[in-house]
């Protein structure tokens, strides 16, 4: 149990360090930084590297936005096995749909409770 906490902290932290370096050193905008991390996660997922990382570091790998890219690709690959090319399109949101729906639902609740600023 304890080693898992440790590696979750280290791997999750390292992904954040990469984001911070992109932000501070390479002067990427927050939007560019975020989408680049999604793409990196998707590529790692495509090569089958991200799932072992999740097994190793748990929430340290699933919480950062890179996990979203991994889920997009995994969903597409799974559906592609069953339905071919159309599966690539339908599968992308298969695994990620809960996350996207949660963003919509909680965003809505947040907007009801608070006065949006942005």
């Amino acid at each position, binding site marked *: 149990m304890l080693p898992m906490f440790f590696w979750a902290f280290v791997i999750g932290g390292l992904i954040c360090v990469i984001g911070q370096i992109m*932000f*501070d050193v390479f*002067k990427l*905008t*927050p*939007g560019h930084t975020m989408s680049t991390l999604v793409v990196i996660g998707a590529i790692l997922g495509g090569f089958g590297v991200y799932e072992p990382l999740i097994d190793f570091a748990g929430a340290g790998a699933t919480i950062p936005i890179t996990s979203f890219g991994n889920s997009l690709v995994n969903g597409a690959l799974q559906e592609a096995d069953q339905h071919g090319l159309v599966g690539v399109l339908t599968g992308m949101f298969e695994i990620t749909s809960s996350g996207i729906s949660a963003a919509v639902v909680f965003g809505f609740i947040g907007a009801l409770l608070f*006065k*949006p*600023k*942005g």
Partner: protein
Amino acid sequence: MLKGKQSWVFPNRPVIVSSAAVGGPFEARGRLANDFDILHDDLWMGQDSYEKAHKLLLEEAIETAIQKGNATKEDVNFMLAGDLVNQITPSSFAARTLGIPYFGLFGACSTSMEGLALASFLINNQGAKTVVTAASSHNAAIEKQFRYPTEYGSQKPPTAQWTVTGAGAALLTDTDEKAGKLVTTSATIGKVVDLGISDPFNMGAAMAPAAADTIIAHFQDLQLDPAYYDLIITGDLAKIGSPIALELLQKEGLQIDSEKFKDCGLMVYQEDQKVQAGGSGAGCSAAVLYGHLFNEMRNGKYQRILLVATGALLSPLSFQQKESIPCIAHAVSIEVHP
């Protein structure tokens, strides 16, 4: 009257009969709180959007300045104002409320001195009897305009600056009763300077060369020595930009005492207020000059000052397309008429 390459002198000495500054809750905790005519304790200011609050700031500053000058809106020939929102709607909407013939200006944070220079020129050359000029910014409205969605809460580096919630307005006329009054005596219009900085979180460094360029042009055109002024104040160069500008000026051989070289962005907040490098925004130099500095001049602390308002002429789109940030600075000299 044109003097030198890019400066005007105003031999008729337009009189600043009154001025006003309005601020928000963060400014109320700042160093210059006593110099604001109106301070709001809520960023919404009783409005249902920050843009409406932004407009209210400007309306209140102009109405207060007109009132303090014992004038009415009908007496004012022209209003010159600008801000940082797309299509400068707070200024134009305020002009709709006030019903004064209106010039909308955009010079980013240099708008305050663009307005004061043009207002002085109009009065000096009998183009108007009474003119009101103003500039304003609202922290939340401008953050929304220029930054990534504010709720995202992305960190700002220490070089970033804090947009001032404030408005400043000045009322100028061509009266002959000048003794002891504040008058504008000259102005230098800056050219756009771009040394290739493309980081919107480091505006101070981007604007410093523009400020130096305008100050050098001012002293060349007017054949003056920097010692002529009690103070030379830049708009919003803040902690990073101000020392850069001073160094550039000293390299060009202008001997300016660092005690006499100030910056509105460094004057407006307390040390313990977390504003990274300092204040900024079109309302920064306007509120500091038309509130604090004019009060100091009226109290006899300064006789002659040169205010150099600096502006970064970027758009939210231009920096995302990786364009560098073109900058500008305009200078106006204000004196106490003997």
